[in-house]
């Protein structure tokens, strides 16, 4: 064993050396007393989860999967340690890793924790909690895909897990923690015989238990699901009287966790933002397979992407996403021999158009990664674009013709999806509710009364006068209707407007009301009054002005004539 786990970890997580050292420092020797609780915070995708998990599994063994979620080179080195871990695998885990989104009740937290403590650390072929680390929280180094391949291809080993233990409240949990910490198992013997590479000899561990770690990822959820649990967890060490350490991983600061009654403070460990060189180093690990000879080109590209996007997007995973999807396009002309590798400027110009597109569509996920790669591939192969379009769209939207330009092809297919049709009267109901939401009720008479023909039209002058009367000009004032957002309106008022703006006479029938209900269920109208209140229902209109404009256009209704103080 030439490399210690610490060095391996440092290699696996560029730019996180300090944090890893800190965590290792807090952990100390396996049986040393630890601080009762740690809080690790930092923005999303800064490697909090992955670092903690990798550190724990590297030091405490087991969970080789999380190690293998590091890059391939590292995992191969770690795999050499497997002989040790194979022995340890059958031993109960020293740590439990919980995701608070999944464990959304205290009971789930308790039971999952107990289960993980009592069972061997999740082995590779079973997959593990370690994997519940997600894209948003993993660092740039995890390669879930590869791991998933391995895990799926390998035949599943049928392990017989211990019984599931019921644990409903904190008291029971504390009791369980004591029990878990007190269990003597063969671990100590194992230590004595095989732990020769570890910095400590196992002789002392006979008398003292190793520290258990309870890790709670996305701990900010705890505040909603189990607010009373936080103080308990903070002093779990004290309550149990055992060597147990709680690690909370969160994106928010500790101040937001504090409860009114007070409690112990954890030690806060902050993960700072990656610097540019760190980011580039991480992205450098993502080099697609088979592109080794283009390493320098890739690094240049990564540099470029970082410079272009960093202003808008600090999220490492988003940049990785973009790099992964844009790099094939970047390298295409090189592979086709159109542009030489060293002609950086030409390549830059070539990719520029795609950058713009990516900023618009890809980053906002208006099109997904597969659609993007499908499109770009099909654009590359020319005539295929039409084919892929029709398989995606099918049916009526299926006749999306592949437009000649790559950019065009992307937009046309999108537009087809964004249009949807409403029944004729439903359109008017929606328009009427928009008017009711944005027009002040006192002007209804002026806009919608059918008695005088002049009443329906409002001259510009009277508009201005009306605006002036209320102490603000028509533009830019903070009291403008448009800026105040939709206001709730009673259904009756909306119906009155509806019947007034319709050209033809419509007898009131039950369909109008069912359509209102279905608009509410489609979230185009928002019901403000509670569902059990049947009389005087109030709603808000929940659609944008742009959409109303297109609706009005399709029904040839002049919406602008009826809107008060709108631009």
């Amino acid at each position: 064993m030439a490399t210690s786990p610490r060095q391996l970890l440092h290699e696996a997580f560029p730019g996180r050396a300090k944090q890893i050292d800190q965590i290792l420092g807090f952990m100390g020797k396996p049986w040393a007393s630890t601080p009762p609780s740690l809080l690790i915070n930092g923005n999303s995708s800064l490697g909090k989860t992955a670092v903690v998990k990798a550190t724990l599994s590297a030091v405490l063994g087991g969970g080789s999967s999380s190690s293998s979620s590091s890059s391939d080179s590292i995992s191969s080195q770690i795999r050499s340690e497997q002989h040790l871990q194979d022995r340890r695998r059958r031993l109960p885990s020293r740590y439990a890793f919980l995701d608070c989104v999944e464990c959304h009740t205290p009971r789930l937290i308790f039971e999952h924790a107990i289960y993980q403590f009592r069972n061997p650390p999740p082995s590779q072929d079973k997959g593990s909690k370690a994997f519940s680390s997600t894209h948003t929280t993993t660092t740039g180094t995890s390669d879930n895909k590869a791991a998933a391949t391995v895990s799926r291809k390998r035949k599943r080993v049928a392990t017989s897990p211990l019984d599931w233990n019921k644990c409903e409240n904190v008291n029971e949990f504390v009791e369980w923690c004591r029990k878990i910490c007190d269990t003597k198992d063969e671990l100590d013997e194992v230590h004595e015989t095989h732990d020769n590479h570890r910095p400590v000899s196992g002789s002392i561990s006979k008398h003292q238990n190793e520290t258990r770690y309870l890790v709670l990822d996305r701990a900010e959820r705890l505040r909603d699901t189990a607010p009373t649990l936080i103080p308990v967890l903070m002093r779990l060490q004290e309550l149990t009287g055992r060597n147990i350490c709680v690690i909370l991983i969160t994106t928010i600061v500790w101040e937001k966790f504090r409860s009114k009654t007070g409690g112990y403070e954890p030690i806060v460990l902050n993960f700072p933002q990656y610097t540019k060189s760190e980011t580039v180093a991480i992205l450098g690990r993502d080099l697609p397979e088979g592109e080794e000879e283009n390493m320098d080109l890739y690094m240049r590209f990564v540099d470029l992407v970082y410079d272009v996007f960093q202003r808008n997007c600090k999220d490492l995973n988003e940049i990785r996403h973009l790099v992964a999807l844009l790099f094939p396009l970047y390298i295409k002309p090189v592979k086709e021999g159109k542009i030489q590798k060293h002609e950086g400027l030409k390549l830059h110009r070539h990719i520029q158009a795609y950058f713009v597109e990516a900023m618009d569509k890809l980053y906002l996920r208006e099109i997904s990664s597969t659609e993007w790669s499908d499109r770009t591939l099909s654009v590359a192969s020319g005539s295929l674009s039409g084919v892929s379009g029709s398989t995606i769209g099918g049916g009526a939207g299926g006749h999306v013709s592949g437009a000649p330009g790559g950019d065009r092809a992307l937009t046309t297919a999108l537009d087809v999806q964004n249009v949807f049709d409403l029944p004729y009267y439903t359109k008017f109901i929606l328009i009427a509710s928009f008017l009711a939401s944005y027009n002040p009720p006192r002007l209804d008479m002026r806009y919608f009364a059918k008695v005088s023909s002049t009443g329906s039209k409002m001259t510009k002058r009277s508009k201005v006068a009306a605006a002036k009367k209320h102490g603000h000009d028509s533009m830019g004032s903070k009291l403008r209707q448009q800026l105040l957002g939709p206001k709730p309106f009673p259904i009756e008022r909306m119906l009155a407007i509806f019947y007034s703006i319709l050209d033809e006479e419509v007898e009131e029938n039950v369909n109008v009301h069912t359509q209102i209900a279905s608009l509410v269920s489609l979230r185009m109208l928002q019901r403000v009054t509670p569902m059990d209140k049947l009389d005087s229902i109030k709603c808000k209109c929940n659609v944008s002005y742009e959409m109303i404009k297109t609706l009005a256009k399709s029904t040839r209704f002049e919406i602008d004539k009826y809107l008060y103080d709108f631009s």
Partner: protein
Amino acid sequence: MDEFDSLTDGVFFVPPSTAGKIAGKSKTKSGKAAQLEHFKLDGFQQLKDVSEPIEAMEIRHALFNREWELMTGRIENVMRNMNTMVLSAIYNFVHNAYSRQYSNAVMPFLELPTGLIFAGINVPDHDLLFQQIAQTISSSTPPSSGPLEADDMEQDHNTTTSARSASHVVILQSKDCTNLKSAQKSMIEQFLGLGIAGATNPLEGGTRLQNYDMLVLERWYQSLCESNDGASEERKQPTLVVILQDFESFDYDTLQDFITICSNYQDRIPFVLLMGLATSIDALHQGLPKAVLSRLQTRKFQMQQSSECLTAIIEDLFIHANVGLMVGSLPLKQLIDQFIHYNFSVGGFISNLKYIVMHHFYANPLSILCDRSLTAQSKALDLLTTGHFDHLRMLPSFQQYVEGKLESDPQEAEMLILDDEFLVQQIPDLVQGLREYHQNFGMIFDFLWFLQTRFSISLLKKPKRALYFMALEGSLINSSHIPFLQSLVRKLDSNNMMIFVEDWLRLFKESPQCVPKQSTALENAMDRELVVVQSIRDRMTALLDNVSEDSVTSSSETEDIGEDIDKSSKTLDGGFVKKRKLVSLNVYAHETDGRQTRIAKKTRETTRIPKGALGAYTLLVKEIDETISRLFRTYLVCHTSMPLNEIYYYSQIAIQQKAFLPQPRASVQTALGQPEVYLNCDCCRPPSGSADQSLADMVLPTQHDTCILYKLYVECGRMINMYDWFTAFGMILERGEQSTGVEEPPAKKRAGAKGSRVGSKARTKENANTNKLDQKDVQARFISGVAELQFMGFIKSTTRKTDHVMRLTWGNI
């Protein structure tokens, strides 16, 4: 009548229990048997006005069943065909979701494969659709696609051979997923319910896991895979498909967590999400935060637009099918209007149609003749009674027919009117005529459509259903649409005209009407038309051949035409579509060009064709024009001109409107404002002096208490003072007592309703001599009436003003 004059008394309908039971137990009881008969025939009854025999009723019932089966069969067929392509795309997506990832996308991390299904805005229709999708996915073979998409078939074939594992599908609806727990629970339960026999139940043994714990699912999945591994090593792991049927109605917070959890487990359980979106992709972007969105790998599937489905159904059912019952213009308009204006609901359309079919066969005695296979030997003809004949002779179309006969053949007209036997003999012929009319109509309608699609000018694009509706109305022939199309045909230049005529001929030849007949006896009108078109074609070819021979040397332009013709004749067999596109492009260009170019074009045309041939060509074009015009005039005539069309075309509208466009407000207003409409009583007559005044405006003391209160209520403002209301109510009652005087007041409609008050009422009557109402009685009646109004939601109590109630309905807004 008196026992049932209450609005509130419960009436119970007790249907007989299951048929078999009764039949087994009480065969002897004839009364029950008759009742049984009634239910066997779905409530069909003998129509008394024509005194029809029971067999006729049975025929109507049988016909109804047959018709409706035919219709539903066709509708289902249409719907299936419309979505096959998308369904197979979805199937492929799901089955390749986890194999594709390795080949195509090079993503740094796993994304959850998610299909977005845009299914149109009518959510209630989606149930069926998503069940269909679920069925498709969980079956191990891809949906059978029509011959249209051969490529897809091939692709599907590959998929089935490579991966034969069926996916497990659950459908989650928002109503099951109010919070995260219930969503997970519902998903897990559904998955486990699908568990293959032999898979160990992870819930057995040990303490129970909670039923919303994802570990349950994980263990179940492991056991599933293990049992699979035993069977065949090669087998791909089954994917678990979760369908979120109505995305918009889900609680977004729940959904967000749910998706996060699914993607957390993705490395252990291969999930595929399918989301049904009723609106647009914006809903997805509004509903989910970036962190969740970035975990999804979306792919969009556009289901067929429901308006397209409607058009296809109408076309299949009414234009081309030979089903018996058709829908006339008014009901069809109502059907379409309801669809377009209100709900886009195909399901609603179908149930509406069923109602029509049902009503036709239920209430129309002549519907026994509504049978396309009616011949002179049909049993239905023997069952006709004098009532039937009367009905027949009352049909407007029949009268029209007879009047037409009156001039040509007065004797036959007389026979038709007087001789029942003769009429019976005539019926099959008339029905046959109608049948032929319909077939010809279908074909010429296709021709019209063919004309319209040829000229891709958006201005005159009309959907098929609109055209059909015009034809039903009878306004199609005289509309400007047809002359416009004709003018476009006239403007075609010679080679395009040639192509046009060729296509025309092919259209006719391919239509089922013109299949080669065994003998000339079977020849029908369409065959004759075919001959006409053929002769035009032949003459045209000859003419153009001459022209090209003559002017081979004269100009290069004519050569081009010749080549064009050659080319087109070469591509005649295969390149139909291509050519059509070419033609329409040409025409479009003509239209968009200015007038000058059109003139230029004319002059060029004249240069092309030598003077001698020009005259002949012009004549030919004229003939084409006339032929087209004649075709439309002859075959697209309105159905109302055909005798006996009323038997086949349903044309009523009122009953349908009542059932499918209910107007709750109007009914309530009538019930409370004019109770006599519903109660059929004779006591509520306006006083003799004010005959001109309508009843609705008057408050009559004889009316029901609630009605009186309602009428007073209508006159009030937003707040109603209870005491004023009470006083007014008392006044009216008193007025009633005074006007009737010592006379016994007419039986009040409230008497039956409140049994407890009968006693007090009797007492009132005893005291009537004093002409004074008991104040307590009035108060009791007032309170019960007010309570009723409150129950119906007209008023509610308020704390804003003492002794007042708030008015809730139809106030001044």
